[in-house]
Structures are given as C-alpha cells and as structure tokens.
C-alpha cells in the first residue's frame, strides 16, 4: 500500500508496474485519475492551486486505504494526491486498486475517491477569467459518500 502527497506529477504505468511486480494473483486493476478541467461552473479555469494540511493529510489518506482494504479484497492500492499550482489538463489525483476480482477493485476505488473528496484535508483555489476564488464543497460529493455509510471512517 502506498500513499503520497507531492507537488511532482505521477506516472500511472510506473505505479501499476510497481504494484504488479513479482506477483501473479492480480485479476483486476481499477484506476482513477482526476484532472484539472478547463471549465468549472461555466468559467474558464486558468490554473488551480491545492493547499493541504501537512500533518494530517497522509494520515487521512492512509486511513482511507486501510478502510477500503478492510471492506474489500484489496491486494494492493496506491493513492497519490498532488499539491501546489497546476495548469489545465494536469493530473491531480491517482487512486489505483489491485484485486483478484473486478467488483472489489471497482468498489474499493470508488469508495476511496468518495471518501477522499469529503474527508481528506485538501482545498482548491481556482484562477479563472473572473479572478481567484476558493471552491465550495459539492452536495453531490456528500451524497456520493452516503452510500458507503454502513459504518463511518
């Protein structure tokens, strides 16, 4: 299991190669990459700045990976989140899950993204044609979290 908070970009193939190395028991890998979109709520996004809470962030990401691993058969998982200033089309976040079975890989990956969106201490500030502003949290992200609430983190 690997979690990382970093300003550098990540490489999906590299992360998958590391997880797959020297093992033949993986049947399914589901990965999610979140990118900076050039348009948010109708305004052109020039750049995005990501702030985080250094002392807490890695702990929160580890807790998410651990919780996912306790709910599903996860052979390995990687969660990388970038911080600092990013341009349109740059990669923000990677969640990758290896499992024997595809249902487990899909569920664990979605779960991790939904939890990350509402529980990990990152904040986005957008620079658009209309100036700079902090993003508000989305009701849809809180709704997405709802379906996993058999027990809380």
């Amino acid at each position: 299991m690997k979690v990382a908070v970093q300003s550098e970009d990540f490489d999906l193939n590299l992360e998958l190669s590391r997880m797959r190395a020297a093992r033949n028991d993986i049947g399914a890998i589901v990965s999610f990459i979140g990118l900076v979109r050039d348009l948010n709520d109708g305004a052109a996004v020039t750049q995005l700045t990501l702030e985080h809470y250094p002392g807490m962030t890695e702990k929160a990401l580890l807790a998410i990976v651990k919780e996912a691993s306790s709910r599903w058969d996860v052979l390995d998982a990687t969660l990388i989140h970038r911080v600092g200033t990013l341009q349109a089309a740059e990669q923000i976040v990677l969640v990758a899950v290896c499992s024997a079975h595809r249902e487990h890989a899909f569920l664990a990956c979605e779960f991790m993204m939904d939890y990350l969106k509402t529980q990990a201490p990152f904040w986005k500030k957008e620079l658009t044609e209309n100036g700079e502003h902090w993003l508000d949290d989305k009701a849809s992200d809180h709704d997405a979290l709802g379906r996993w609430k058999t027990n809380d983190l």
Partner: protein
Amino acid sequence: MKIKIFYFARLKETLKFSSEDLELPEAELSLIKLKGVLAKRSEVWQKMLLGNLKVRGAINHELVDDHALIVDGDEVAFFPPVTGG
C-alpha cells in the same frame, strides 16, 4: 492548557493567521467553545468562525464535531469543507 491552532484555505487568508500557540485558563474546552473564545477577537473572527461559513475542525489530525473536547497539548485545526480529489 496550552494548544496549537492551525488555519487553512479561506480561513487562513481572511484571518491572516496560519498557526498560533495559545494558552487558555481552562483545563479542557469543546471545539465550539474554543470558536467562541476566538470569535471575541474581532468582527472578522466572529464572522469567519461563527458566521454563515461551514467551518470544520480537527483535533490531533482527526476530523471531529463541535462537541469534541480539547485538552492540554492538542493540535487543533479550523478549515472550510475539503475540496480535494
């Protein structure tokens, strides 16, 4: 008790504080009571901590609700709802 407080994102920018060490007469205090103490500093503090903004809190790196208790040595953080991912 002595505690450390961190502020993030919109709170940090508006309050012009990223962190502070604070000494308080109480031996323990709920998060909401701490907000009340800080809100007395000025109108801006009042508005940011007890206004319309949703303010989330963490104690020692764990997300907690307003009734969580803070004790000596704790690291407290205030921030808006998270928006990563």
